[in-house]
């Protein structure tokens, strides 16, 4: 009601109860990867306001800066409006508008031709795709192994290290127990994922005055700002710091031995037979079960049995034990761990100089961790039953939790560093206990989970789906995707001897390899929302050259055809031959599936959908609808019915509700079954999406209190997990402190077994596939070491931006319109640089020019900048003089995608185990720019010309003026 109270000296009449909206629709945010639930308020069909959905399990009502700026993303003038075909040379941005019929016919012709001849000639790579359940399945159906999303340059080190070690991982697969943790250790920049849950969690943590939050990060921004203690670690040395903490815990005997015995493979016997084929493998019985020495019988016993008291140290002559059918020497895995990390090379004083963290601090942090874990133990009066059926009357918690993400992941030692962190967690007994790190269902899964990838040429045939998915988890050399001669089967060389455990594929190599025809040429590169000619490429300038390079022999582009789908005029658009314009996130159906990247929390599983909130006002189609349409046109078996007609005529919505991957398992877990009453496994329910919409577009189920901790060994939880179809059977999931799959690769490198690497790769595999965590210097140190390139260079993620998307957003670009190169204040003084100076930043691979800003909270040997702010001139429909392009810059130009030759071979600038792009390994030097060089960043590229049909940029934006309520002052003023 209008408030008519007269004001002293002011006649203003305020409507304190204006109508907010005439309709509220729920859906799922896509302003980053967090996938919060949102309520979208509509007035007269326009978006009035977007807020967090208070009932949603991810964000519980809150919404970040990005999500709150969704209106500006949706109405961005950078939106594509119609299918386009290239009419000028690649890179010219000269396109003609075409109809969808022509676009789809062209794509079908190109793809159909390939599928008839050699399906490998399609490389299908999706970027920040949240529909990998569909896109990966489509690639399998097409019959090409050349599929991946962006995980290879994002977080595969974290995902793979976690999944091979604890059957779960940080971020999407787990979270700290924020309410109960007393000590929280965060490694590296973490602002880019799980952003609202982490902020909410930090809020809870900080509300408890007795907690301590330690941030280990070369840069003190973001979350580090509110940490109790900031450790400005030297980039790439986190693993060494962690191993020193382990050394301290072992020195003092501050280890949760009960936890290790029950839940990890610490007691499993490992053969000690140097030079032999079984060295370092677990001792197993004839049923292939691992063995331990049972102290109560002083004999061998099945290590998986509940009724043993396994020895944790010592050396055993197997011939003296058991039935005498085994021979040789074996030790418990824990014995190897004790020997390894008790070594003085891991003493705090020995690592202080390299890590930049002094020995007394490392000792103190170790003491604090032990104090929190063992002196502040939590007991919850919650009875539970373990995997062996034994009842426990309470849950014991070690209230120490950890989180790590990009700062660990983007280094070439990231996999082993992440494994070191998980080892530290296990030694403290703090995985999935009260106060510790907690799994989010469907995790934990067996470490590693299935399935294995397919894609060797003997698994491929024209017009035939592959026998398995293109991505998965391998457990030994026999599972690699390599040909008989050892060469890679995939275009990106994932799952090859060079990068064996590349569980997310290696999107960062696809353009290079397709250009070089290595290991073979392709015909079509098909990409979805991946800005691979700009901020998602290492070595951006050369990548652009490869996209436009013409083979002089044929006169054709070396990458012959490029199809690209995006919603916006990104830097990648000019390099495509055919553009399939996508919708915004508010115009589409989508599903956030547990077959892909779950949004569960530790207290229960969840999945969700997007529903169209507004109809597109342009000639665009949701990419997933287009993919399903193409699948039917190509006759992919799962996308047509028996008569060859489209199986999912209703597009993605139809697929989401009706597709079953295996009987009873579909994209969504909620409201399955004939009557829509079953959750988890059940028949497809044609009305499933209606049920989701009625429930706020998500499904969430709360675990029973007894199921919430020790999920890897909790009978009730394991039975539930098996019933839901997440694990094959309700067996204990043993945490893999010692990793046998890694040892198998090492043995192969040492010359054992049927499957051995080419000689070139032997030493590299032998060195890095250590079954216990190791630390080694990032590879770049060898090529751009301390003297010539004394500084580390890396990026941090601004909390108000998601990759390159934010710069087209009228509101977000006012927060981060351009970036500076930040440098430690003392280092700046030493280099005679002052704020606002321009400087050349050089690596062995390129140089850029950037503007300097000094700060105190930065490691002295480190410079950094915000990620993905720099834009190409004319891109994203920004003004040619936008600060993003004139002053903003990318570090990408300085990062090599291939390391310099070593033994005649060039490896990717990547982790040797997972192939994770190592873009945080960068080393640089700074030189002050000459007079006259100030004012503009370098390199600059030709301006991207406007696309046909591009919307005009408004000079003034007055969004919201249309929502003025009746009686508002401006209406009165205009009526006067």
């Amino acid at each position, binding site marked *: 009601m209008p408030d008519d109270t007269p004001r002293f000296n002011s006649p203003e009449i305020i409507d*304190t109860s204006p109508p907010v909206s005439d309709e509220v629709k729920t859906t799922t945010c896509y302003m980053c990867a967090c996938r919060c639930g949102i309520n979208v308020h509509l007035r007269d069909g326009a978006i009035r306001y977007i807020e967090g959905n208070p009932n949603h399990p991810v964000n519980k009502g809150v919404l970040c800066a990005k999500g709150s700026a969704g209106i500006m993303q949706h109405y961005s003038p950078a939106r594509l409006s119609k299918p386009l075909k290239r009419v000028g040379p690649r890179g010219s941005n000269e396109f003609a508008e075409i109809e969808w019929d022509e676009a789809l016919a062209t794509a079908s012709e190109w793809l159909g031709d390939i599928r008839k001849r050699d399906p490998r000639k399609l490389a299908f790579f999706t970027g920040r795709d949240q529909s990998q359940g569909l896109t990966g399945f489509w690639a399998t159906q097409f019959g090409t192994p050349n599929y991946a999303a962006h995980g290879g340059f994002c977080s595969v080190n974290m995902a793979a290290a976690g999944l091979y070690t604890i059957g779960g991982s940080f971020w999407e697969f787990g979270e700290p127990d924020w309410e109960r943790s007393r000590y929280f250790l965060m490694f590296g920049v973490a602002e880019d994922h799980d*952003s609202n849950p982490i902020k909410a969690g930090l809020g809870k943590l900080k509300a408890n005055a007795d907690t301590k939050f330690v941030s280990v990060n070369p840069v003190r921004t973001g979350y580090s700002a509110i940490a109790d203690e900031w450790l400005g670690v030297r980039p790439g040395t986190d693993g060494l710091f962690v191993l020193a903490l382990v050394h301290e815990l072992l020195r003092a005997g501050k280890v949760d031995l009960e936890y290790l015995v029950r839940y990890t493979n610490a007691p499993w016997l490992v053969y000690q037979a140097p030079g032999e084929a079984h060295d370092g493998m677990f001792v197993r019985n004839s049923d292939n079960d691992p063995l331990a020495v049972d102290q109560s019988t002083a004999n061998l016993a099945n290590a998986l049995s509940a009724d043993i008291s396994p020895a944790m140290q010592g050396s055993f002559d197997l011939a003296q034990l058991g039935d005498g059918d085994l021979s040789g020497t074996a030790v418990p895995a824990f014995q190897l761990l004790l020997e390894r990390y008790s070594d003085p090379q891991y003493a705090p004083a020995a690592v202080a100089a390299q890590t930049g963290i002094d020995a007394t601090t490392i000792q103190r942090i170790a003491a604090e961790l032990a104090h929190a874990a063992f002196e502040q133990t939590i007991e919850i009066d919650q009875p539970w039953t373990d995997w062996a059926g034994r009842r426990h009357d309470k849950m014991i918690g070690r209230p120490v939790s950890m989180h790590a993400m990009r700062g660990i992941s983007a280094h070439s030692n990231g996999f082993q560093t992440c494994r070191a962190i998980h080892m530290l967690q296990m030694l403290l007994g703090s995985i999935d206990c009260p106060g510790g790190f907690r799994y989010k269902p469907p995790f934990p899964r067996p470490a590693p989970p299935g399935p294995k990838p397919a894609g060797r040429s003997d698994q491929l045939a024209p017009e035939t789906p592959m026998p398995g998915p293109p991505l998965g988890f391998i457990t030994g050399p026999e599972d690699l995707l390599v040909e008989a001669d050892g060469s890679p089967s995939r275009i990106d060389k994932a799952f090859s001897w060079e990068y064996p455990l590349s569980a997310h594929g290696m999107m960062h190599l696809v353009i290079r390899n397709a250009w070089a025809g290595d290991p073979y040429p392709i015909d079509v590169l098909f990409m979805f929302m991946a800005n691979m000619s700009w901020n998602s490429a290492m070595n951006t300038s050369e990548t652009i050259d490869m996209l436009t390079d013409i083979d002089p022999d044929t006169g054709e582009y070396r990458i012959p055809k490029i199809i690209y789908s995006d919603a916006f005029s990104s830097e990648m658009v000019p390099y495509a031959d055919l553009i399939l314009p996508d919708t915004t996130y508010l115009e589409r159906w989508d599903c956030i599936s547990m077959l892909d990247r779950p949004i569960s929390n530790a207290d229960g599983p969840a999945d969700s959908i997007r529903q169209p909130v507004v109809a597109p006002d342009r000639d665009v189609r949701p990419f997933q609808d287009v993919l399903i349409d193409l699948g039917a046109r190509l006759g992919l078996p799962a996308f047509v019915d028996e008569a060859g007609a489209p199986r999912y005529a209703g597009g993605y919505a139809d697929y989401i509700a009706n597709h079953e991957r295996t009987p009873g398992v579909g994209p969504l877990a909620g409201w399955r079954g004939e009557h829509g009453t079953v959750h988890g496994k059940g028949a497809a329910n044609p009305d499933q999406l209606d049920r989701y919409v009625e429930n706020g577009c998500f499904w969430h189920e709360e675990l029973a209190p007894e199921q919430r901790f020790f999920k890897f060994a909790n009978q009730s939880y394991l039975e539930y997990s098996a019933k839901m179809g997440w694990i094959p059977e309700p067996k204990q999931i043993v945490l893999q402190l010692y990793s046998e799959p890694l040892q198998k690769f090492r043995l192969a490198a040492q010359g054992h077994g049927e499957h051995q690497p080419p000689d070139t790769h032997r030493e590299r595999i032998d060195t890095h596939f250590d079954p216990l965590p190791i630390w080694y210097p990032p590879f770049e140190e060898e090529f751009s070491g301390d003297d010539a390139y004394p500084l580390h260079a890396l990026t941090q993620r601004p909390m108000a931006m998601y990759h390159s998307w934010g710069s087209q957003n009228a509101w977000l670009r006012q927060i981060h319109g351009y970036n500076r190169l930040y440098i430690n204040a003392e280092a700046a003084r030493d280099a005679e640089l002052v704020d606002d100076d321009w400087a050349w930043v050089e690596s062995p691979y390129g140089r850029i020019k950037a503007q300097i800003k000094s700060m105190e909270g930065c490691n002295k040997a480190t410079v950094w900048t915000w990620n993905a702010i720099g834009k190409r001139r004319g891109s994203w429909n920004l003004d040619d003089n936008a600060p993003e392009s004139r002053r903003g810059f990318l570090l990408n130009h300085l990062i090599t995608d291939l390391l310099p030759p070593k033994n005649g071979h060039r490896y990717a600038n990547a982790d040797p185990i997972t192939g994770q792009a190592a873009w945080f390994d960068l080393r640089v030097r700074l030189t002050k720019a000459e007079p006259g060089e100030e004012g503009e960043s370098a390199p600059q590229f030709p301006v991207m010309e406007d696309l046909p049909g591009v919307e005009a940029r408004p000079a003034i934006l007055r969004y919201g003026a249309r929502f003025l309520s009746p009686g508002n002052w401006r209406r009165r003023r205009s009526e006067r």
Partner: protein
Amino acid sequence: MTSLPQSPPATKLGLVIDLDTCVGCHACAVNCKEWNTGGHSAPLTDLEPYGESPLGVWFNRIHSFEAGDGAEGRTVNFPKSCLHCDEPACVTVCPTGASYKREEDGIVLVNPDTCIGCKLCSWACPYGAREYDYTDGVMKKCTLCVDRIYNENLEEVDRVPACVSTCPASARHFGDLGDPNSEVSQLVAERGGYDLMPEMEMQPVNKYLPPRPAKTSTGDTGAPAALPDHDIAPVEATGRGFLAWVDRTLSR
């Protein structure tokens, strides 16, 4: 010309902002922008939104800075909007009476009907909390979401300013700082909440909670400076030593 209420407001609605928890994520600033650009002061105009010098009206801005040197220093994220002062110079300086403070809840507002856009108030405000809309030619500012906090079209739980509702870290609190028993007043009392720039004598209603003392010294968590050696010598790197602390009967 003064437009202060004849009697000081008993109810003082305002914000309490926890600098110990704020991570500087800008959620409050952007959610404020989206609510208010279609709300009471609509629109919050953006000049050159896709151009060289984008310049928009924002009622809430985040300032990030460092305090102290080296590793001992802190990074501080400092959100700032109108503090709805008890003695607001922006009100007393206004030549037309357009700038005023509400008697019933203490909210400081601008009446656009009588604002002549002279900007005296923005010069007078020591906090820089006023935002001039060049297109409308009037001064705009934080209304404490006056069109939300009493809005009967919203659920009661949502009748708080947008910045408070959306804050992911729960670093923002809203309530009556005129009531010593309110949750916000208690929070201020417990945590030593303080006035921004008290020497300006504006008597701001909004309060800031200072960062808690960081636990960076030995003993702050109760832990010793370093772990003691276990009573048994550590494993020898060469031979296979035997550790008493590992030599326990541990059942699986």
